[in-house]
């Protein structure tokens, strides 16, 4: 990050020395981000395009390590706020909004018709009727499967465009188990991967509204609906990789790549890891999570990444201009094509050559039930963590169900007094 900054400063300095006075006249917009190398390059390309179109604005991006950023943002928003900052939608941005550190950008939304163009992301960008975020990318979750493992266990590979139903999926799991292959793998030492599994079971058993209400603390963990989710979870539990609690999701990816597991409930970012491990479009497949309760409108998980205007911004006018650009179909198509994720702007385009992106786009754009952000973004931080520990525990000790539910319920009543 420092390197980039130095490079930028160097460029400015060189321009000044060359006598080009306009370099100083540019209005600066600062942007703090947490990109990995590929997204970073994509963001720089967008900046270049934007600056070409707005020669009097200079966007200065400072990049942070992804994990360090979660900590850093809490400091720089107060101490030394940039104009723009990356973060996440829904409940994850709530503390910053409530502390008055993120600025209301409803005007940007209104002026650019974003309520229309970013329709699927309106709820996750809105707090108390005002918009505080520009969503520019998301990625689908679902089931990735290994065709070689299917072949090894002699299970019929799901046909394209056809979802396997839940009883068949479980019956297949029996066959995988008999063949010594884990039907579903995961590595839950960081907790969140189990939330993906739970969320899907919950969305498929009771639908989107249930998921949202559960995350908001409105539903009792001992209610019949919540129990129904755990009942489905219990059916899946015997087929999940043992010792998942001691390994990371990348460790489990290795198990999957080595044909020792057939399915992986994951986000699309894992495709890169699978392919690095040697998988190709020939043996890696994607399918939607099977329907459980018939007739429920299908909802999907697609965590959204966002960019925000800070309250301490020194150049909010130009920053808003850049935000509008980031919301545009053009910018989103370009950035997401480079990164391999999905644009939130419904007018943007997706690379048709990437089967996972196309299927993801298809999956999400036809999800009539709604788009969930993911358990740990839909629920408040503390509640999210308690929930994930409960899910992980259930997957390790299904017999402790009553205790798990009682504990979760106690946490709920403490955080959301009735």
């Amino acid at each position, binding site marked *: 990050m420092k390197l980039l900054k130095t490079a930028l400063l160097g460029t400015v300095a060189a321009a000044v020395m060359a006598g080009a006075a306009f370099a100083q006249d540019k209005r600066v917009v600062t942007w703090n981000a947490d990109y990995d190398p590929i997204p970073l390059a994509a963001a720089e390309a967008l900046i270049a395009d934007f600056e070409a179109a707005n020669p009097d604005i200079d966007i200065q991006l400072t990049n942070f390590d992804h994990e360090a950023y*979660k*900590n850093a943002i*809490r400091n720089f*928003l*107060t101490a030394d*706020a940039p104009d723009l900052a990356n973060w996440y939608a829904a409940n994850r941005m709530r*503390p*910053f909004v409530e*502390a*008055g*550190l993120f600025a209301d950008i409803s005007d940007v939304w209104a002026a650019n018709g974003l309520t229309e163009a970013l329709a699927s992301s309106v709820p996750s960008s809105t707090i108390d009727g005002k918009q505080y975020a520009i969503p520019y990318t998301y990625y689908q979750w679902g089931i990735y499967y290994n065709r070689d493992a299917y072949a090894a266990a002699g299970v019929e590979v799901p046909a394209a465009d056809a979802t396997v139903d839940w009883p068949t999926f479980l019956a297949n799991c029996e066959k995988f188990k008999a063949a010594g292959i884990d039907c579903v793998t995961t590595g*839950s*030492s*960081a*907790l969140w991967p189990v939330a993906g599994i739970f969320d899907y079971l919950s969305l498929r058993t009771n639908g989107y509204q249930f998921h949202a209400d559960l995350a908001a603390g409105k539903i009792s963990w001992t209610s019949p609906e919540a129990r129904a989710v755990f009942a489905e979870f219990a059916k899946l539990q015997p087929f999940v990789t*043992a*010792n*998942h*609690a*001691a*390994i990371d999701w990348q460790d489990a990816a290795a198990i999957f790549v080595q044909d020792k597991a057939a399915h992986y409930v994951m986000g699309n970012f894992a495709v890169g890891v699978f392919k690095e491990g040697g998988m190709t479009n020939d043996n890696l497949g994607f399918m939607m999570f099977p329907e459980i309760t018939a007739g429920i409108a299908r909802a999907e998980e697609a965590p959204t990444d966002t960019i925000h205007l800070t*309250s*301490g911004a020194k150049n909010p006018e130009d920053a808003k201009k850049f935000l509008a650009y980031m919301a545009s179909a053009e910018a989103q198509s370009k950035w997401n094509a480079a990164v391999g994720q999905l644009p939130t702007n419904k007018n943007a385009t997706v690379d048709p050559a990437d089967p996972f992106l196309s299927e993801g786009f298809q999956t999400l754009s036809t999800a009539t039930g709604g788009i969930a952000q993911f358990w*740990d973004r839909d629920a408040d*931080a*503390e509640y*999210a*963590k308690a929930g994930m*520990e*409960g899910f*992980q*525990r259930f997957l*390790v*000790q299904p017999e402790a169900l009553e205790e798990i539910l009682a*504990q979760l319920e*106690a946490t709920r009543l*403490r955080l959301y007094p009735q």
Partner: protein
Amino acid sequence: MALATDSGASAAVSQKAPRWNQKNLAPWLFLAPGMFMFTVYVLWPIVESITLSFYDWNGLYNRDGEFTGRFVGMANYRELLIDPAFETSLWNNLKWLVLYMLALPLGLFIAIFLNQTVRGIRIYKSLFFFPFVISQVVVGLIFAWFYAPNFGLLYLLIEWLAGKGVAILADPDLVTYGIIAAGLWPQIAYVMILYLTGLNNVSPDQIEAARLDGAKGWKMLWYVVLPQLRPATFIAVIVTVIGALRSFDLVSIMTSGGPFGSSRVLSYYMFEMALGEFGFRMGYGAAIAVVLFAIMMIFISGFIWKMWRDETER
């Protein structure tokens, strides 16, 4: 650098001041820089943490740099009483305290084993001490690898003996013991070196006299040697208790408190609540820290009391 400038200042003062005054002033001048630093970074933060434990604060300041916390009285402490994660942490701390004490007999055992004058014994002693010198982060990584499912040495060993491997760090009932074992490794080394030094200073006359009286083996150890090792034992208890209560690094590196919080200890839980990804409850974290501090104070008071006794006896 601080040394040069500060003592320079005190020298300048001492030349002007009359002698009787100089002797009264000098200790405070010598103490000033050290006490200043210690007050700012250690004593005052304790007071601040205790205050903070009565607030609900997410660690954020608003745009004007104002503290956004809210006074909640005893609410954080009341919440601790019903918080199952806190209860687990407390129990685990107790396990740490009790099992860490194993470092004493084991360290003594190794010390006795090594307290010989054969060729190369010095290098043996150094190598046995080795685990204490390396960082707990490294110890944690070493043991994580040792326990790793499917290919860890211990996993394979158990698989070979029992037919089925045990992933210690994934098992909620075993995980704390697994981490404690990792912590004991360097701790035993530390206790060993304390006892080796102690054994070196055991009076040979008393041992000989006891031998003539027919004492040997366990009896000799219990009635003659151990009483003389009392200072070493005292220090060993202190450092072991502190080591047990400070057990942050290993938990953080090996399990991050998991699976589902089973290996949390107070020191880690506090960090998780205050600075963890789902935390930023500074006040609640502070309350946990105050409880940990209170537990530690029991031992600190004991230590200070003994030092006080020693000082006044002199």
